[in-house]
């Protein structure tokens, strides 16, 4: 009897596509819609996991675009300490779509950032980039001047990029009730003081996140009509949840919503979704790509994700890799491994939340 499943490839079936293959052989998880050419500028932003993408792109000879470079002569570890070279602009991690929307709106002048600052020991901390200066800024003026540089960098990155890669991290955030703006971290954790009358918890739902991303894309395309988007979802579980749920179910909610939004956004021709989330979390991989804390992704996991990224790109769009192969003789997987080994710790503000976990 004829039916639509008869002529499907083996990867369309769980048994033949997953169960009967050793996990490293599970391939074709991504069919890139568009190539990444050696001449194209690729910019990155997002959650902590997104840093792996920028590192691997650079190591593999792609044109990762750094719109806010550090001063010359600054050693790599200090660059990272001050948030340079982590993403294409110096916002620090952007965990939520609302935060990305807020940055893009501020940069474009659609809205203005509040003049709120956090202070500690006579130093000034940017509520929206609380870890960007390890010991804070000297004064408010310096903080605002630094943020203004970042806002200009965001515009420059959007205008100059061919592809913007964003990694979704969380649905949960803390907002300022009267100001209506969103913080990257709960005030009182990394910096600032928590004020229960002003600081409210928000767990963004599908429609809110989808709307935020649509706005980001509309503003970006207004500046650069040929910009393409590549979305991923971080496989790193929540460090903590304020939702009242168990952190495990809160993680499932968060990642599921983000995955759904990313998938739906990728229905557009110029938007793609890269399944880094699935490559780490799927049962086929039996959790092997997680460190003992069941949260951090191992270097092997990152290497698996990034080698899949480059292999899929090479299969679907050989032109993406051909010129890299001549200039970069290393196998792609080696490049990814090198990138991972070359880096020290990623810059992940959210892990600091662990300090607030009770032991009983």
């Amino acid at each position, binding site marked *: 009897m004829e039916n639509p499943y008869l002529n499907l490839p083996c990867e369309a079936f769980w048994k033949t596509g997953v169960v009967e293959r050793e996990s490293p052989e599970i391939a074709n998880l991504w069919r890139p819609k568009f190539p990444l050419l050696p001449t194209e500028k690729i910019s990155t932003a997002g959650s902590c996991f997104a840093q792996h993408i920028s590192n691997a792109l650079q190591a593999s000879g792609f044109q990762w675009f750094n719109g806010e470079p550090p001063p010359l002569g600054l*050693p790599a570890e200090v660059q990272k300490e*001050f948030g340079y070279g982590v993403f294409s602009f110096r916002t620090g991690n952007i965990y939520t779509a609302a935060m990305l929307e807020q940055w893009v709106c501020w940069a474009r002048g659609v809205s203005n950032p509040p003049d709120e600052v956090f202070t500690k020991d006579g130093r000034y901390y940017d509520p929206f980039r609380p870890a960007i200066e390890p010991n804070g800024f000297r004064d408010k003026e310096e903080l605002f*001047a630094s943020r203004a540089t970042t806002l200009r960098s965001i515009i420059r990155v959007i205008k100059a990029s061919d592809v913007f890669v964003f990694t979704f991290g969380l649905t949960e955030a803390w907002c300022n009730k009267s100001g209506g703006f969103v913080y990257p971290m709960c005030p009182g954790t990394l910096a600032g003081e928590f004020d229960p009358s002003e600081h409210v918890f928000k767990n963004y739902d599908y429609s809110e996140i989808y709307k935020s991303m649509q706005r980001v894309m509309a503003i970006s395309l207004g500046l650069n009509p040929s910009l393409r988007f590549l979305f991923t979802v971080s496989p790193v579980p929540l460090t903590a949840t304020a939702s009242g749920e168990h952190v495990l179910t809160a993680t499932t909610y968060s990642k599921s919503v983000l995955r759904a939004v990313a998938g739906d956004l990728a229905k557009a021709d110029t938007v793609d979704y890269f399944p880094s989330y699935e490559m780490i979390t799927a049962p086929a991989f039996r959790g092997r790509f997680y460190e003992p804390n069941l949260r951090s992704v191992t270097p092997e996991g990152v290497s698996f994700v990034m080698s899949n990224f480059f292999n899929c790109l090479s299969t679907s769009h050989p032109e993406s890799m051909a010129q890299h192969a001549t200039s970069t003789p290393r196998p792609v997987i080696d490049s990814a491994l090198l990138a991972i080994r070359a880096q020290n710790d990623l810059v992940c503000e959210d892990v600091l939340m662990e300090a607030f976990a009770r032991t009983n």
Partner: protein
Amino acid sequence: MKRICVIGDSHLASLKVAWVSGLAERYPSVNLTFFGAGGNGIGRVVAREGRLVTTEPHVIHSFTITSEVDPPEVVLHHYDAIFVHGLFPMSLAILDLLRIEESSSRTRQHFSSALRNRVISHRLETGLAGHLIRQIRKVSQLPVYFSPHACFCETLLGMVSRHECDAFHRMMGPLELSVLDSIEAELVRTISHNQGFYLAQPRATLTEKCFTRAEYLNGAVRMTSGFSEAQPDDDFTHMNPQYGSQLLEMLFSALG
């Protein structure tokens, strides 16, 4: 008699000529011995048994010419103080912190004071001056005074091509001495961390835009030619004995 060892790179020439052509007579209670090595030569100098020595032939040769000491080694206990001069290109340090965000704009990328300080201290500590001071500190607790290269001469502005000049003006034009002040404050901190003393470029030698005044360029001589040959016309970094004289007078004043 105060015995001072002056050690540095090719910029030492302005000090040596200033010293032999007049200052030595005015300061009979001071004795200066110069050890100069051009380029990165000081990077090949190491501390050994109370001395600063090198096995690099061109540095040995240069030390011989500049010091007239045999063997050409710095025996540290022969001196009461060490003056390290040059080995730190101040104007390049400034330029590194003045990036223009876009080629068409005048907007500078903002770097925080903490970051600027990290850049400056890193440059100093990992550069030739830092190397030399560390070598000295391995074997001696003598007072160490340090002054960097003079800022580029203002004649530079007229030398660069029009296109480069536009960019240069955009970058340096709005520069104020306060930028130099903040860089020097970090140099003071870094040097004092190494139990040393920082000597700033005499402010009278500077324009308000952080360039060395043109009058301190004319008559600059090359160290490697035995202090007899003039610096080429297109040089804008090596200063003349009038500059060296001001710096040495600052040193003597600091020594008390």
